[in-house]
């Protein structure tokens, strides 16, 4: 069947595409701008002549980044953090979500444990106790300080619990009848069904590890151990202009150097940009595919 293309419908299409294109453009513009800045000459960048096309094209700033040890070190720390943090996050998320998604008859302490997790979202001890706990447990200044304290991302657990709950009980019962244990049900049935949610949660946890900067700054005792975003924060920071003195002049030159800053920002974006397309498809395939028929 073919739609009759009324003028109204065509207008709608135009408007629709127009608005969507505009939205996409507003998202895309900043990225292009940063890319253009990173490839421009630094005088052009500092005088604000660069929009989305590089002015006086050169790759000097990328060369600076490649030769800049601090950036590469920080990149490695971040990669390490993601490589360690995400598997631990995922394992613990799955292992805590499964029991919490059981019915009360199956898991008596369920209410207690649900609150046990929820409380950590509602209340926090504040920065000083957080710092002291990490210090007293001897994690300070090690990469684990950025991984263990956030090892169970409660928000992700809740997402997964909700998804597990939505899985029809018949599936599980059928498996149970066939002699499957809880482990077997979790690994063989729940996880394969939950791939879309798992993908989402993985992405969350990955983003979280990649993007967090504050813990690195506070918990590491040496800038050499900063993860990438903590390092980035130290170069994109803007100083309070009322307390500037002449001794800050050389710092001022570095932080106002837009081209190298942009190059570093752009490179730091790449890993996440690369991950998105692969996980994106799970967001769109709908969260309730599969399951039971009839």
């Amino acid at each position, binding site marked *: 069947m073919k739609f009759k293309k009324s003028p109204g419908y065509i207008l709608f299409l135009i408007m629709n595409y127009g608005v969507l294109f505009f939205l996409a453009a507003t998202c895309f513009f900043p990225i292009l701008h940063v890319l253009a800045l990173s490839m421009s000459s630094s*005088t052009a960048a*500092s*005088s*604000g*002549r660069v929009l989305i096309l590089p002015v006086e094209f050169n790759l000097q700033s990328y060369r600076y980044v490649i030769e800049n040890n601090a950036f590469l070190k920080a990149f490695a720390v971040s990669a390490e953090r993601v490589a*360690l943090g995400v*598997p*631990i996050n995922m*394992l613990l998320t799955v292992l805590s979500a499964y029991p919490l998604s059981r019915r009360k008859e199956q898991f008596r302490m369920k209410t207690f444990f649900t609150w046990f997790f929820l409380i950590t979202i509602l209340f926090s001890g504040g*920065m*000083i106790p957080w*710092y*002291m706990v990490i*210090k007293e447990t001897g994690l300070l*200044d*090690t*990469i*684990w300080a950025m991984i263990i304290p956030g090892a169970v991302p409660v928000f992700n657990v809740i997402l997964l619990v909700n998804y597990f709950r939505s899985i029809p009980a018949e599936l599980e019962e059928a498996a149970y009848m066939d002699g499957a*244990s809880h*482990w*077997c049900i979790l*690994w*063989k049935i729940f996880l394969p069904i939950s791939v879309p949610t798992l993908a989402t949660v993985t992405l969350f946890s990955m983003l979280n590890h990649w993007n967090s900067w504050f813990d690195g*700054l*506070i918990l590491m*005792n*040496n*800038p*050499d151990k*900063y993860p990438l975003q*903590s390092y980035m*924060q*130290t*170069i994109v*920071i*803007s100083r309070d*202009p*009322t*307390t*500037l*003195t*002449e*001794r800050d*002049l*050389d*710092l*001022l*030159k*570095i*932080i*106002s150097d837009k081209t190298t800053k942009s190059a570093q920002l752009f490179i730091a974006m790449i890993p996440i940009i690369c991950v998105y397309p692969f996980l994106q498809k799970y967001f769109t395939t709908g969260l309730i595919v599969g399951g039971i028929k009839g």
Partner: protein
Amino acid sequence: MPAYKKCVIVVLLICFAFFVYGCKSTSSENTETEQTTSGFKFIVEEKYSPAIELVSVKSVDATVKFLEGEDIYNNIWTRTYAEELGINLSYMWVVDNSQYQQKLTATIMSGDIPDVFVCDPLLFKMLYDSDLIEDISEIYETHASETTRMVLEQDELALPCTTIDGKLMGVPITDASIANAPLLWIRQDWMKKLNIDPPESMQDLMEISRRFVEGDPDGNGIKDTIGLAVSKELWGAYAGLQGFFNGFHAYPRIWIERDGELVYGTIQPEARQALAVLQEMYKNGEIDKEFGVKDINKVAETIANNKCGIEFGVWWNPYSPLYLSQANYPDAYWQAYPIPSIDDTPAKSQYSAAVGSIIVVRKGYPHPEAVFKLLNFWCDNFLFSNDKELRDAYLGSLDNPDVVKYKYTDFHLWEPNSILRTYENVKKALASRNTDGLNHDEWQRYQIISAYFDQGIKEAWVEVATYGENGSVSILKNIAQGGGMVNRFYGAPTRVMSEKMAALHTMEDEMMIKTIMGEPLESFDTFVEEWYKLGGEEITREVNDWWRN
């Protein structure tokens, strides 16, 4: 069972990861590279024997770079301290400048106080109130060397800043106070082009600003220039408004003496007058229509873009951001002028004590005098040294300009008056063409300024506009000799002040920006009332109590 196997494998892998990391962190112990300090002779009173331990904390920033194989824990300074003074300086942690205060607070709260460390005035007051820092009045008398005392006492506002209840509780890290006095910067090449004379009064300045907007000084045929550069922060080190207000004898953000009492400058009637003029200028397009959203980095772009010709800022502005202007347009030249006045009374540039940070000693640290041993070591051996080898080894050399070595230690003081002396010496040398007796730094500046005049190297204008004969420093000299208005309040923040001043400042800025952008002037009057009500009255009382004591 494959399901079990998978679990077991995952668990094993994680155990393995833990194990590998455990091993790694123990095996990566510091490999100590023993390098000796080359044979300089130092003036040292007495070396600690046996050596003492001094634990500190350190902030670094993106400009701190090291030679191959060195780091903050092991560099020429730490080695020299150990060898010459018998002080083993170590750091609990090292953090980027931007997070220093936060991390320091966390560390102190968790009960670990470093032996000697640098803090800001606010934390300084808190440490004193909690009785966590040592009274160093006596140690100062007995252990500070003559040079150290000279440097610390040169700026008469410095030591009072760190004296509470008559006790010296910390060493102020001094800078010249006059260095933060605002000056007037104007594009001289534009004035020449439009045939304008230097401003004698505020009225002249407003005329110049008008002509900069209408006279098309950038010569592109479009009316796209503005007069005065203003940033949304209002009181920055460049593109600020302090200087403009000073021209009307108004002194925003500082405490001035009036009829035997200290009063807050922003709320005085003169400020209203200045605001009225700014409002007018904004209406005429002499101030950027969008200044309310442009921070100083954005304003720097406007300046770099050849779009504005007047700004109020401190003496070093040519180094940043004004050099951008010349970098893009080779003929650009910014000249500093004293703040002009609206009437017959000469205008006074405002300035405040420049104690941004303070070195303190933990209460109960067994060797509090070590802090002066470290400072003496700097003042006696480096501050006035012209030994090129020594300077290259400890401060940084021209061959490797990125590695600035004095930044490895916090124990250095700079002589507040050095800017003025450098200016005098360079001036003398330029007049007589004789470089004898210049120190290294002065000699460099002399060379650069000569290059501008002899070889026409236009990039060298930066030095000409600062240390040159009519440069900005020449105006500072005037300000130092009584031509300035000093902030009369230089104590640690008082109780209500530390609670409410930040909010009052925000309110003040909002009122300023809105009024300049066209709100009726009455909003200034309501602001003054509000200011008193929301804590200003108590603060004024506190400040006056402090002043009378």
